[in-house]
């Protein structure tokens, strides 16, 4: 008799030793004379449980985690491959874990359940059904479906995806392009990487559907170079999809073509901005372009181009397969469907939490995240990456909804949630925001190029207690200048974390102000 063991293979699990576990399991299995068939799944995205080993049972997959090398002997002793055994790391049925069960995994339905590169696995889990459906539809019908689903850009700007596609569909050109923004550079985010490392065909399928929808025959995935495993996985997946007739010329005998290539970035955060990304993709220096013209009309190599985030494109196969209504059924207000949140920072239970829009930030941080990892009081949380606002406790009941967040001056962005306990110095965090802008500004527009450097200097003066009031006013002016004057979101949003820190955590800025100044 043989048993199947699933050992995760994404970058995080491997960083936590999953590869070593595989060899350990194989050695011990041989010694124990038990036939264990080890498969490499992606990851469930439950990082606090990684490495999370799963075993197949008739009732479903039983999980053990987090597993260290030192746990293998006891796991073998308890014959863990049988699933429901008594062991301190036994988690029971993985899909019954509340953390997972309470999510609405539409996009990430396959996450951790399949071998990332197995076309059979992908097909067995509803893969390519969206594409097959799309091949039967007119381009306008595909665009209509995406519009009706209410899908909005998951990269952060939340622009309605269907409207963007409509613009590109309506543009006439000898060549159009689908560009996937996979330059996932926001601190605390990893959802794009999980798509690419654990379910790459979903992205390929989504991009192909986009190509069919707008009449583009060439796609590019602009991938950050810090994701070498995603690069390998995507390239293997593209190769296999082409061999299987799912990509390239004459897709599934339909007569339609869609070619796809992965291009690596060179380590610039700004290249996650869509126009800088296009410049970089064209082989130029990553500099932001002024808009208009919109990339949808004048994009890559001057041609109409869909530029979508990985998560936007990854949501498309579900929408085509299950129908726009099935997707739009989830969410609240104008935020339809789900957003894969990524819990990070000082959090007890970090990982991927795909939720329909609607629950509060507090629920996400406490009911999923379980509060801080070190048990200290949570003080601030930054949502939406390094350009997102810091939210104080008074705002934690804000619903996870684009509009609700905008109302409190915050953004959901790409869904990254980074938590800070009560030891955080928000003056230092504000400085970091400006410093991040110094490091990552492309240097094109003045407010961002010079403003960020001055921002660091002014914050340093404030924190050192130099003319605190005057400098706070200057900082406030500077934030307005960057906000109103910057060419793109890099400089335009850098003030968000700074302003929110000043507003909600003002006490951290005046620690060294002289008493006289405070009096005044």
């Amino acid at each position: 008799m043989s048993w199947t063991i699933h050992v995760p293979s994404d970058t995080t699990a491997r960083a936590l030793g999953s590869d070593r576990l595989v060899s350990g399991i194989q050695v011990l299995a041989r010694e124990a004379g038990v036939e264990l068939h080890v498969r490499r799944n992606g990851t469930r995205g439950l990082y606090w449980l990684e490495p999370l080993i799963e075993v197949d049972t008739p009732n479903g997959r039983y999980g053990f985690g987090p597993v260290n090398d030192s746990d293998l002997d006891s796991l073998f002793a308890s014959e863990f491959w049988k699933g429901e055994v008594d062991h301190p790391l036994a988690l029971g049925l993985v899909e019954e874990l509340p953390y997972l069960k309470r999510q609405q995994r539409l996009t990430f339905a396959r996450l951790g359940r399949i071998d990332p590169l197995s076309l059979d696995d992908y097909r067995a889990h509803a893969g390519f059904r969206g594409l097959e459906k799309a091949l039967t539809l007119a381009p306008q019908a595909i665009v209509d479906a995406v519009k009706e689903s209410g899908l909005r850009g998951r990269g952060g700007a939340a622009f309605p995806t269907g409207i963007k596609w409509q613009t590109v569909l309506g543009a006439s050109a000898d060549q159009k392009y689908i560009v996937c923004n996979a330059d996932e550079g926001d601190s605390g985010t990893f959802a794009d990487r999980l798509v690419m490392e654990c379910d790459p065909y979903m992205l390929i399928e989504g991009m192909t559907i986009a190509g069919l929808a707008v009449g583009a025959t060439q796609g590019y995935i602009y991938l950050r170079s810090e994701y070498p495993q995603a690069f390998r996985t995507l390239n293997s997946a593209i190769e296999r999809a082409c061999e299987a007739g799912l990509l390239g010329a004459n897709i599934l005998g339909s007569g339609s073509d869609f070619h796809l290539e992965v291009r690596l970035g060179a380590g610039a955060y700004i290249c996650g901005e869509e126009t800088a990304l296009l410049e970089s993709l064209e082989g130029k220096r990553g500099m932001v372009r002024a808009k208009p013209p919109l990339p949808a009309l004048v994009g890559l190599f001057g041609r109409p181009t869909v530029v979508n985030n990985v998560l936007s494109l990854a949501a498309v196969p579900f929408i085509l397969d299950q129908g726009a209504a099935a997707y739009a059924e989830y969410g609240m207000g104008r935020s339809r469907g789900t957003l894969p949140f990524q819990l990070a920072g000082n959090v007890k239970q970090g990982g991927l939490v795909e939720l329909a829009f609607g629950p509060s930030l507090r629920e996400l941080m406490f009911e999923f995240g379980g509060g801080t990892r070190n048990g200290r009081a949570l003080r601030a949380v930054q949502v939406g990456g390094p350009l997102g606002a810091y939210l104080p406790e008074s705002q934690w009941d804000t619903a996870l909804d684009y509009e609700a967040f905008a109302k409190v001056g915050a953004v959901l962005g790409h869904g990254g949630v980074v938590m800070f306990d009560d030891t955080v110095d928000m003056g230092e965090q504000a400085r970091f925001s400006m410093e991040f802008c110094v490091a990552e500004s492309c240097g094109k527009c003045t407010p961002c190029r010079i403003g960020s450097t001055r921002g660091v200097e002014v914050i340093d003066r404030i924190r050192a207690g130099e003319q605190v009031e005057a400098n706070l006013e200057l900082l406030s002016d500077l934030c307005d200048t960057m906000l109103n004057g910057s060419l793109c979101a890099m400089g335009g949003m850098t003030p968000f974390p700074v302003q929110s820190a000043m507003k909600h955590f003002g006490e951290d800025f005046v620690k060294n102000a002289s008493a006289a100044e405070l009096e005044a």
Partner: protein
Amino acid sequence: MLQYFDPKVNPVVDHNRDYGTKPSLSEKQVVLEIDGIAIQVPEGTSVMRAAAMADITIPKLCATDNLDAYGSCRLCAVQIEGRRGMPASCTTPVEQGMKVWTQTDALAKLRRNIMELYISDHPLDCLTCPANGNCELQDMAGAVGLREVRYGFEGENHLEAPKDTSNPYFTFDGSKCIVCSRCVRACSEVQGTFALTLDGRGFASKIAAGQDEGFLDSECVSCGACVQACPTATLTENSVISMGQPEHSVVTTCAYCGVGCSFKAEMKGDKLVRMVPFKGGEANHGHSCVKGRFAFGYATHKDRIRVPMIRDSIDQPWKEVSWDEAIGFAANRLRAIQAEHGRESIGGITSSRCTNEEAYLVQKLIRTAFGNNNTDTCARVCHSPTGYGLKQTLGESAGTQTFDSVLKADCVLVIGANPTDAHPVFGSLLRRRLREGASLIVADPRHIDLLDTPHLTSAMHLPLRPGSNVAMVNALAHVIVTEGLEDLDFIRERCDNAAYQQWRAFIAEERNSPEQMEAVTGVNAELVRQAARAYANANNAAIYYGLGVTEHSQGSTTVMGIANLALATGNIGRDGVGVNPLRGQNNVQGSCDMGSFPHELPGYQHVADDVARGRFEQAWGVTIDHEPGLRIPNMFNAAISGQFRAMYVQGEDIAQSDPNTQHVEQALRSLDCLIVQDIFLNETAKFAHVLLPGSSFLEKNGTFTNAERRINRVRKVMPPVAGKEDWEVTQMLSNALGYAMNYQHPSEIMAEIASLTPSFAGVSYEKLEEFGSLQWPCNDENPQGSPIMHVESFPIGQARFAVTEFVATTERATRRFPLLLTTGRILSQYNVGAQTRRTENQVWHSEDVLEIHPHDAEERGVKDGDWLGISSRAGHTVLRARISERMQPGVVYTTFHHPHSGANVITTDNSDWATNCPEYKVTAVQVERVTQPSEWQKNFHDNHQRQNKFLKDATTAVDPS
């Protein structure tokens, strides 16, 4: 009341205003409101430009109206009703009904705060800064009301950024840079060289030339576009740094190549501070090259001839004399020679460097006071085949297009021309079109720089052997005819059928096929077929050619073959097509137009044409010979044989520029009287008896006509160094010879030209003031001139195909002379170099070298930098070797910018069968390593020393007053 901007009422674009962004060419008009003023502008116009058109100035730094909008400085933010935020007006296009506000409290605060950021990283040395008084940053600080810099000046900054002084004409001061990228964009978008880039990112962003190697060592061609674009003192002309800001300016026309760029000569009193390309110039639209922009120092060079001089023999020192004495001396000699040797024993050469009026006057002097037709011009040695070939086929001796026409071309065929070196401003325009996607075909023995145009989309090189142009052009035509690529409708409607049928039968013969011609051209037949198809199948295909076409024994045949190609494919008579000779000198078109040739009166009216000649005879009050006079080579031969005894040469250095130097020198030595009018003691003047100081283009009024037939005004910005403009000197000589001339101003000469020359009938100085420039024909039918020729019909009714039989030149590679030498120009030097060698342009090209292919070099044991003896059947000279793969094996190349190089000692007296244009482009030579200069070079050196001493002794010995 609503005030509309109506282009019909208000057609004048103020070329001294910066509208911020480029004009939109849309036909559709949009009405919007800016600060409550309604304005109508073409769709696609930016809000910034629309505002400027309504005389509303929006602050800006990174925008300028010859570059694409960039949107980086953010000063030009505006508020638009119904829109969020403060969008940049440079990148925001107008929309119907838009309401824009350019001055609000919020905008004022934003702009002031942005300026505060700029100034927090800028040296506060305005009073000692070279841009003081002409600094956009300073202006903007004033405009936004910046009163304090709260950030202080202790923060991170670039105040210690180093200066780059490597370029001789301008300095890059990194401490003043605001990183607006105008220089980078100008280098890319306007010049097309892409030498500049931004290095680093964020606050560390800085401008870098090449791989951050300094301007001089980078690919920079010193065109000056970056200097012009810079809104601060970062890129400043060294002349401004040393002299300060100019106080007035005069628009005039460059005197270098045939592009004829318009410049603002920016002056302090009578001192020229800098030349800035004029945006209103139709030929250059505000662009320039290193020569016109910077190389004007020759005009005030110490070598200028400032006083008239005479001598009895060329072995004597010069004697400085008054104008009257010099002119009297010359007139007496001329009359004495004519008395002794006959009316035909004297003649003259008009200058393609001087104005139309001056060329006209010299030929008039010859046909009236001299009483013969012995007039010729330097076009003889460059574009005379163009005049002949195009007149035969199209009926007019001129290019058919404007330069701007190239922006509509889909396929550009360049034959025997090197525009990026020899016509750089047109080269930049062409490169722009190539970047936009037009395909390029280059037929040239060398791999010219155009083939390395950045972002070129499709290019073919046909590396033909020197001397095989006709074979190539015929092979191209053969493919067009035999593959059914002709434009039969055009041919039926516009071309003479009999001539067409005769040509067609000839060209379709198999002996003209690419396959048959491959042995002659050395170019793969399939490549030729592809090129022919690309040319014929393009919607708009244009041909540009240069001296690589004309300076051959079959120069005229090739020109006709080129016309055949255009006619066969219907590529004549509209924008984007045509036959375009790239003229070498500033006024070579004009000097030809002005009747400089011995057989033609002004306007290409043949001397044998009784009606035309009659008009001139009546106007001039003389009898004009109905037989053509002597051409330059005939003059030389006649001089050597003793019949031709005196010459008046205005502004041409025949001793250096004409082929077979030793023959020319012999002819010049044979003359009894050589009168040279020039700004320097040039090579010809060393053989002269009378030396009349010439005036530079800065010192006179007149007109030049460029390669697109554009008549442009030349305006005097400083007094002539010797007190007289060139036309005044000719007039004095005429009067001394007894033929009265009494012009008070060149405009009177132009009026006479207009009265006698049908194609110039509508030209006047008043009209030139009104329209800026005029392209001839300009007459009652085309009162504002003719940008495109042959739109409806040809001057000869129907165009005539010409049979162009290939006849190989007698100059061919032999066992004794196994290599073919071809000659050309480079960017930084100009022709004989008399001007550019007296400027800092020397840093780029201080000597002529012989380019030789590595294969030929290795065979002869030649290394880079070796001295090479070059021998032809005509002579021998010595140049330094440069190993280069731009040449094909078997072909060597040199330039002729330095007289002591003796490039023309080697060239032969072979010439075009129709026009005697010398065959400069093919000379069979042998090269070998040597250790010393040639005999000719030694003699040259000795003569140079001696003649310079004669000049020096003259200036020190005699008081000119």
